[in-house]
C-alpha cells in the first residue's frame, strides 16, 4: 500500500496561497534574482509613468491613455503569471513537505540520562548525541541510530509500506526515523541530528524554495537568457533612431511591448518553477536529495552500481534441488540434509526445510532428541548436528566438506562435476556429509526479480552502464549478470572493490551512482557522484550519501536518474519553445510599427492582423498567456523517453521547436481577431 501522494495540479487551496504569493514576490529585491522578469518589471514601471504622464499629453508616442493602461496591465499580468508559476510550484512542494512533516509532530520521548534513569521530555528538546529508549507502541521521537537492541518497526508513515521491518543495533539496518512506530521489543537510540537539521528538514527547505540554490546547469541557462535579454534590449533601443531615420516615431508603449515580447519571458518566468518541481518530484518518489545539484547530476549518470541481493534478485537464495551422490538414495540424503538444517535459522537453511516438506513430506517429523547442534563457525565453515546415536552430519561449501570427508577420488569427481554444473547455472552448491562421507549436494538458487530485465534495458537505452555487485564467485555472478541483463559485475566483492571500481570509472570521466546502506558502504557512497543511502541504513551511510531513499527500495536509483533527466529536458525544451516564439512575434510587431510610414512592410504582415494597435496588443497577450499555459508542463516535467539521445532530440525538436514556431502564429491571429473587435 503506497501512500497517495498525488496532489492535484491546481488544488484550490494551494492556488489561493500561490496567488497571494505572486503579489508578495513583486518586491524588486526579490525579482532581481530573475533578471529576465526583472526587466519586465522595470518595463512595467516605465509604462505606469507613461500612462500617467500621457494622460495629460495625448500626443505622447501616439498611443492613447486607455491603450497605454491596457499594455501596462498586461505587462503586470505577465509578471504575476511568472510569479504564480513559481509560487504554485513552491506551494505544491510545501504541501508535499507538510505531509512528511506531520510525521515529526511533538511526541513525548523517553530520554535516557547519563545515570541510566529515564526522563520524559518533548521530542523537540532532543539534541544530537542524546539517547532515548523506545518500546512497543512508542512513536520514534527523533531520527537516530539504534545502539542497543532490536525492534520491529512500522515505517508506513514515511514509506507507505505497511509491512513491519526489523531494525537492529550493530547491523546495516540500524537507522530509525522520527514518526515511525515501534511494534515490538525495546531499543536504545542515539539521536543523529538536532531538530530542524535532519535530512528531511533540509529537503523540505529545498522544496519550499527558501534555501534553493541554483544548480550549475540552471546558472548557465540563466546566463544565456540574460544574453538574449541584452540582445533584445539592444534591438529595441536602437530601433527608435532607426524608426526616426525612416520618419517613424515609435511610441514608448510599442517599444516596451516589443521588448517584453522578445525577451525569453516564457522560460524566464518558468525557470525556477521547473527547478522546484524537479525537487518536488524527487520527494514524491520518496527520495530526499540533499541538494538540487544532486538531482541534476543524477540525470548525467553513466554507471550504476547495484547490489545483487535485494536489487536484482529477491532477497536470499533458496534451495531448489537435492542431488544425492555416491549411491545414496534421495530419501537418505534429504533426511540427512533436513537434520543438519533444523537448527539453521539462515534463510538458506529455512528454504531447505521448506523444499524438503514439499518434495518428501513423509520424513517429517524428524527425531532430534538429545541432538547437539553445531553452529556455523568461521574456522570450519560448516554447520550441522551430532545425533544421539553418534551420527555426525555436516553441511557447507564443497571445499570445506571435502576437507572433512574422506571419500575416494571417484566420489569427489562426481561431486565436483555436480558442483561445477550448479555454479555454472548461477546456483550455489551446498555439500552435505554424514560421518565423514559426502552424501550429496543441495542446489541453492537466486531468484531474479520479475521486471528487472526491462528496467535494465531502459537504463541501457539511456546510456547507463549497470554493474552488479555481489559476494558470489565469478561463475555464479556471471550467470546472474547475464540473466538479469547487467553490463558488468564485481564478483566476490569486498567494500574496497566497490570503491576501486568507482574510482576507476571516474578516472575515465564517468559519473557513477550507487546505493548502499552499511557503514562499510560509506566511503564508496561518498566517492560516488550520486550516492543514495537507504533510510534504514546506518548513520554513516546516510551522512556520506547525497540522497536518502525513504522507501529503502534498491531500484530507486533508476527513478532518480529519470527525474534528473526530466529536469534538464523540461528546461531545455521550454527554452527552445520560448526563443522560437519570437519569430511569429516579429512578424506581428515589426510590420505593425511601420505600417503607416513604410506601407510596403505590410507585406510582412503575413498573419493579416487587423491594425497596429491590435497586432501589438495580441502579441503581448499571447506572451502573457503562454506562461500560464505552460505551467502544467513546468510542474509535471516533460516526459523522459528512453529512445536514445538523438531520438529524444528529434522528438522534442518537432514538439517544442516546430510547435514553438507555429503555435504563436495561430495564437496571435486568434487573439487579434477578438481584440480587433474592440479596437476599431
Amino acid at each position: 500500500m503506497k501512500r497517495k501522494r498525488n496532489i492535484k495540479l491546481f488544488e484550490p487551496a494551494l492556488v489561493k496561497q500561490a496567488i497571494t504569493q505572486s503579489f508578495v514576490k513583486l518586491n524588486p529585491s526579490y525579482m532581481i534574482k530573475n533578471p529576465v522578469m526583472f526587466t519586465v518589471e522595470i518595463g512595467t514601471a516605465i509604462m505606469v509613468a507613461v500612462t500617467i504622464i500621457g494622460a495629460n499629453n495625448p500626443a505622447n508616442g501616439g498611443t492613447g491613455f486607455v491603450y497605454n493602461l491596457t499594455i501596462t496591465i498586461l505587462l503586470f499580468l505577465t509578471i504575476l503569471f511568472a510569479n504564480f508559476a513559481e509560487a504554485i510550484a513552491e506551494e505544491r512542494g510545501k504541501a508535499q513537505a507538510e505531509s512528511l512533516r506531520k510525521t515529526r509532530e511533538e511526541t513525548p520521548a523517553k530520554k535516557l540520562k547519563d545515570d541510566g534513569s529515564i526522563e520524559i521530555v518533548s521530542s523537540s528538546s532532543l539534541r544530537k548525541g542524546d539517547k532515548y529508549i523506545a518500546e512497543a507502541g512508542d512513536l520514534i521521537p527523533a531520527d537516530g541510530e539504534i545502539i542497543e537492541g532490536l525492534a520491529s518497526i512500522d515505517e508506513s508513515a514515511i514509506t507507505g509500506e505497511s509491512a513491519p521491518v526489523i531494525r537492529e543495533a550493530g547491523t546495516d539496518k540500524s537507522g530509525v526515523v522520527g514518526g515511525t512506530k515501534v511494534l515490538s521489543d525495546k531499543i536504545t537510540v542515539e539521536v543523529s541530528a538536532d531538530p530542524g537539521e535532519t535530512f528531511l528538514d533540509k529537503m523540505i527547505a529545498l522544496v519550499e524554495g527558501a534555501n534553493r540554490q541554483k544548480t550549475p546547469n540552471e546558472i548557465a541557462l540563466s546566463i544565456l537568457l540574460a544574453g538574449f535579454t541584452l540582445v533584445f534590449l539592444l534591438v529595441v533601443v536602437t530601433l527608435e533612431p532607426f524608426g526616426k531615420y525612416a520618419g517613424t516615431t515609435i511610441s514608448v508603449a510599442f517599444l516596451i511591448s516589443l521588448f517584453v515580447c522578445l525577451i525569453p519571458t516564457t522560460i524566464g518566468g518558468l525557470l525556477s518553477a521547473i527547478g522546484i518541481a524537479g525537487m518536488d518530484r524527487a520527494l514524491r518518489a520518496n527520495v530526499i536529495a540533499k541538494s538540487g545539484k544532486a538531482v541534476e547530476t543524477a540525470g548525467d549518470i553513466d554507471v550504476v552500481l547495484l547490489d545483487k541481493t535485494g536489487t536484482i534478485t529477491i532477497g536470499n537464495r533458496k534451495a531448489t534441488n537435492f542431488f544425492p551422490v555416491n549411491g545414496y538414495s534421495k530419501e537418505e540424503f534429504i533426511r540427512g540434509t533436513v537434520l543438519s538444517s533444523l537448527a539453521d535459522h539462515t534463510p538458506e537453511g529455512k528454504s531447505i526445510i521448506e523444499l524438503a516438506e514439499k518434495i518428501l513430506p513423509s520424513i517429517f517429523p524428524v527425531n532430534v532428541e538429545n541432538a547437539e547442534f553445531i553452529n556455523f563457525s568461521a574456522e570450519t565453515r560448516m554447520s550441522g548436528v551430532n545425533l544421539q546415536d553418534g551420527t555426525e552430519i555436516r553441511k557447507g561449501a564443497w571445499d570445506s566438506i571435502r576437507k572433512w570427508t574422506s571419500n575416494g577420488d571417484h566420489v569427489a569427481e562426481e561431486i565436483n562435476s555436480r558442483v561445477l554444473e550448479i555454479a555454472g547455472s548461477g546456483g550455489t552448491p551446498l555439500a552435505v556429509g554424514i560421518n565423514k562421507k559426502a552424501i550429496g549436494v543441495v542446489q541453492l538458487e537466486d531468484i531474479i526479480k520479475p521486471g528487472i530485465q526491462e528496467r535494465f534495458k531502459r537504463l541501457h537505452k539511456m546510456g547507463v552502464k549497470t554493474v552488479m555487485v555481489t559476494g558470489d564467485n565469478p561463475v555464479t555472478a556471471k550467470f546472474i549478470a547475464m540473466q538479469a541483463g547487467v553490463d558488468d559485475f564485481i564478483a566476490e566483492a569486498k567494500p574496497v572493490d566497490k570503491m576501486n571500481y568507482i574510482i576507476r570509472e571516474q578516472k575515465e570521466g564517468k559519473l557513477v551512482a550507487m546505493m548502499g546502506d552499511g557503514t562499510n558502504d560509506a566511503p564508496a557512497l561518498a566517492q560516488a557522484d550520486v550516492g543514495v543511502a537507504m533510510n534504514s541504513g546506518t548513520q554513516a551511510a546516510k551522512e556520506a550519501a547525497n540522497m536518502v531513499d525513504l522507501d529503502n527500495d534498491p531500484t530507486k536509483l533508476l527513478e532518480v536518474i529519470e527525474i534528473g533527466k526530466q529536469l534538464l529536458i523540461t528546461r531545455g525544451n521550454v527554452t527552445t519553445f520560448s526563443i522560437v516564439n519570437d519569430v511569429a512575434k516579429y512578424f506581428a510587431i515589426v510590420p505593425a510599427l511601420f505600417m503607416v510610414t513604410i506601407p510596403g512592410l505590410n507585406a510582412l504582415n503575413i498573419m493579416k492582423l487587423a491594425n497596429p494597435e491590435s497586432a501589438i496588443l495580441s502579441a503581448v497577450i499571447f506572451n502573457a498567456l503562454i506562461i500560464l499555459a505552460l505551467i502544467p508542463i513546468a510542474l509535471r516535467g516533460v516526459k523522459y523517453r528512453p529512445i536514445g539521445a538523438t531520438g529524444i532530440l528529434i522528438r522534442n525538436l518537432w514538439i517544442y521547436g516546430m510547435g514553438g514556431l507555429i503555435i504563436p502564429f495561430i495564437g496571435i491571429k486568434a487573439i487579434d481577431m477578438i481584440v480587433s473587435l474592440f479596437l476599431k
Partner: protein
Amino acid sequence: MNSEILGVLVTLVLMIVLSYPLGKYISKVLKGEKVWTDFLYPVENFIYKISGIDPDKEMDWKENMKALLKLNVFFFIWAFVIFLIQDKIPFWNPAGIGPMEPTLAFNTAVSFISNTNIQHYSGETGLSYFSQLLVVCYMQFVSAATGIAALALIFKGLSQRKAKDLGNFYSLWLKSNTRILLPLAIVIAVILLLNGTPATFKGPQTIKTLQGDTVTVALGPAAPVVAIKQIGTNGGGFFGPNSAHPFENPNYITNIVECWGILAIPMALVFAFGFYLNKKRLGIMIFAVMAIVYLSFTALAIKFEVDGNPLIKKMGIEQTTGSMEGKEVRFGPAASAFWASSTTVTSNGSSNSNHDSQTPLAGGIDIMNMMINSIFGGVGVGFINFFMFLIIAVFIAGLMVGRTPEFLGKKIEAKEVKIAALIILLHPFLILVSTAISAYIASHNPNIGWLTNPSYHGFSEMLYEFTSASANNGSEFTGLNANVPFWNIMDGVIMLIGRFLPIIGPVAIAGSLAEKKYIPESEGTLRLDGYAFGIVLLAVIIVISALSFFPALAVGPIAEHFSIL
C-alpha cells in the same frame, strides 16, 4: 544566361572538391605532421633564430593571446607610421604619392591588421608601391595567418585531454604564412600574371588612344597583392575598383580562380577541423550546415540579380541580361552576385561589382551574410565565430535531451556559456549601436553629406558599412562617403573590437575546455555528427542572427525592396 549559371556551378564544384585535400594538408601543417613543404624548415628555423623564439615552447591560452596581441601591436605601428611617411621613402614611389591623412591612416592600419581591409582610399592615388607591398601586401599575409594560428590554438585546446598547453602561437603563425598562404598565393599570382595582371615597379603610363586623347593608366606590383587578398579573405585591392578592375581581374578564367580563392581556405578549415580532431563526420556535418546557408543565400542573391530591377521592369523594358547596374559586362549578374555573396559570407570583402548597385534584397543578403559572419567566414576567424554558435547549440541541444551538455567530451558549463553569449552579443552590439548613432546624426543633419542615396537605401549604406567593419569584411556600399573622420574613427574602433575580442573569447573557452576532464561518449551522449544536431545548429545560427537583426534589415533592404515593387 545558362552559361553564366554553369560558370557559377563550375566554380562551386572546384571550391568544394579542392577544399577536402587542402583541409587535410592544413590539418597536417597545424599538427606538425610530415608534409611536402617541410623543405621550408631551414627558412623558418632562421626566422625563429633571429627573433629569439623557441617554436616548441608550450604556452597556455593567456600566453598565446599575449603573443598574438604583441605581434599585432607591432603590425599596427608599422602600418600606421609607413602610411604617414610614405612620401619620405625615397624609392618605390614613382607616382610621387603624398602622406595619408591621420584618421584615414588609422582606419587603414587597423583595417589591414584586422584582416578587414575596408579601403577609404583608392590604391592608385592613395598608396606608394612601398606601402602597397610592405604594408598592404604584407599585412594581408600576416593578418590571415593570425586568424589561422588562432584557430589552430582552439583545435589544440579541443584535442587536449587535460592540459593547459594550446600550442605555440608564433610557430603556428609562421607556418600558416610559409606553408599555407604563401604557396597558394604564388599559384594564384602566377595564373593572374599569365592572364595579364601587371607586376611591375614602373609608374603610371600615359597612352594616346585612337581618339587622340591621352589617358593615364595606373600600373604597379598588382599580381601578388591580388593573390593574397583573395586567398587570405582580405579583400584589400591594389586598385580602387578592386576585382572589377580589368588589371586585377582580367577575364572570366581569372574570375573563377579569384572566386575560388575567396572560399578555398575557409572551406578547407572546416575539413581541417575534422581531420585534426579525428572527427571527420562532424567536420562534414558542419560543412553541410554551412553549405546549406551559403548555397541558399547565394542562390537567392543570384535570382534577384538575374531577375533584374523591378523599376525597369515596370517601365516595360526587357532585361534579358538581368540587373547590369554596377556590373562588369565580362562577368554578368550571376557571377557578380555569386562573388558578392561569397565575399560576404567569408570576411573577404573584395568585389567584382558594385555592391551598392545590387537589387535591394541581394544587397540585403550581403549584409545578412556579414551579420551571421560564421558561414565559412574569414580564414580562421570564421570557424572561430562558428565555434561560439556550436557552444550555444550544444548547450541547448544537451538540455533538450536531458544531459549536461558536452562538446567533444568536455562539459559546457556556465563559464563557456557566458563567454560565448558575450561574444555572440558583441557583433549585434557593435553594428546596431553604431548604426543607431549614425542614423541619429544623419536624420538630424540632412546636409551632412554622408549619403548619396536617400531613404531606406541610405540606411542600408550605413548598416552595411558598420556590419562590414564589425565582421572584418571590408566591402562597402560605396555610395557612402566614408572618408571623413567620423567614419574613419568609428570604423577603426569597431574593426579593432570586432577583430580581437572574438578571437580572445573563444581561445579562452578552448583553454578552459582543454583543462577539463575528458568524458568518453556513451549511448546517452548526443551524437553531434548526425542530422538532428545539424538542425539545431542551423536553427541556432539563423534564429539568433535573424532575431538580432530583423528590425534593422526591415528598415533597410526589406523596406526598399517592398517600396519599389
